[in-house]
């Protein structure tokens, strides 16, 4: 049975997939010779038979190839979630270390690195408070009592907000409480830390002060009674 002329275009489907009877096949072939649109479309579809031939016929049942809607959601394998946890942990550690490095001034972003002890306030880069974050200053505290040879090393790290003081000390008194004091260049004093004696005579701590690093004249270790144990003088 020959299709109506207006239906000739549609024969392209069965022409590509197969199934036209000989008459229709002949009619469409003739039509193709004169119809540019059908020629163009046939060209676009010409690869389909080859692609369809890739599919093994026993797998063409849609139910076997598609995941049915009623399928139970498979659980994500434990090994995969474990792997992701490990990667997340690894990333947190790396990012945490990065943040800590920035906070500690070891990575200076966009600032000029200048030792704060020179007291200069010229800064290249964005407008900022008077001192740039930068490298720390290391000082050693001298014991005030020769009979009590406290060893104390301080690192003063300039921050945007002031100064971070990192203290590591040993041969401290075995008991009681101790304090850390900042003596400013203007003569004023303020306590920045207090801690209890540990059985080992050591301590490692960080203190924070709003005082600018270049406004610090010295740092003192004292007992809570006020007795000076060690003093660190900053140069300048």
């Amino acid at each position, binding site marked *: *049975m020959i299709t109506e002329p207006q*239906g000739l275009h549609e*024969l392209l489907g*069965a022409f590509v*997939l197969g*199934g036209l*009877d000989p008459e229709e096949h002949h009619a469409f072939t003739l039509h193709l010779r004169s119809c540019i649109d059908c020629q163009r479309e046939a060209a676009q579809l010409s690869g389909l038979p080859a692609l369809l031939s*890739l599919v093994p016929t026993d797998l063409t049942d849609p139910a076997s190839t598609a995941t049915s809607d009623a399928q139970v959601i498979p659980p994500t394998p434990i090994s995969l979630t474990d792997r992701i946890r490990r990667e997340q942990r690894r990333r947190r550690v790396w990012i945490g270390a990065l943040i800590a490095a920035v906070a500690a001034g070891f990575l200076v972003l966009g600032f000029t690195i200048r030792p704060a002890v020179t007291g200069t306030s010229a800064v290249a880069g964005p407008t900022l408070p008077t001192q740039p974050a930068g490298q720390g200053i290391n000082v050693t505290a001298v014991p005030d009592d020769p009979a009590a040879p406290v060893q104390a090393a301080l690192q003063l790290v300039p921050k945007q907000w002031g100064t971070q003081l990192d203290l590591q000390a040993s041969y401290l008194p075995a008991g009681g409480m101790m304090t850390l004091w900042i003596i400013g260049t203007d003569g004023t004093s303020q306590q920045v830390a207090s801690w209890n004696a540990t059985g080992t005579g050591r301590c490692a701590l960080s203190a924070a002060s709003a005082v600018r690093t270049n406004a610090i004249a010295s740092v003192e270790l004292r007992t809570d009674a006020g007795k000076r144990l060690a003093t660190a003088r900053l140069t300048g």
Partner: protein
Amino acid sequence: MPLGDEMVTAIYVEHADMLRRFALRAMHDAGRAEDLVQEVVFRAWRRSPEPDDMRSYLLASARNLVIDQYRAAARRPQESHDAAIPEVPANAGDPEAEVNRLLDQILVEEALTRLQPDHRNVVQALYFAGLSVQQAADSLGVPAGTVKSRAYYAVRSLRTILDEMGVQQ
């Protein structure tokens, strides 16, 4: 639940079956196939891509992993009996061509599932079952004219779907 878990679960639920079908055909070993699926999903999570077609992206990733393993196996010809090496495919002269064939196979199957049921049934009847238009009409319980017009829209739709999935002619 952290964002990472949600994404992985979503990818796994939607794509693991199909990835596994490809992996099984490529690796011929259920254990290695599962490893491959997990590696693909893990890499996708790590890169967090936003492709137009996630499934095609995952399959492309799987394809690359399989080819890497085939090449590694080819470099160790004396160890072909080692269970740790993936079985070299039948078309050992061109492993890449074989993998591409398997991939296209999976993609075409996937494309067929994306066809509307009426279109898919006509493709099944005319192409895979080799029925004539009239036989298909009888089988599907519709007029012959309906079979012809559905066939026309089915092939156009199939071509569009394949194009979207990145399948070349």
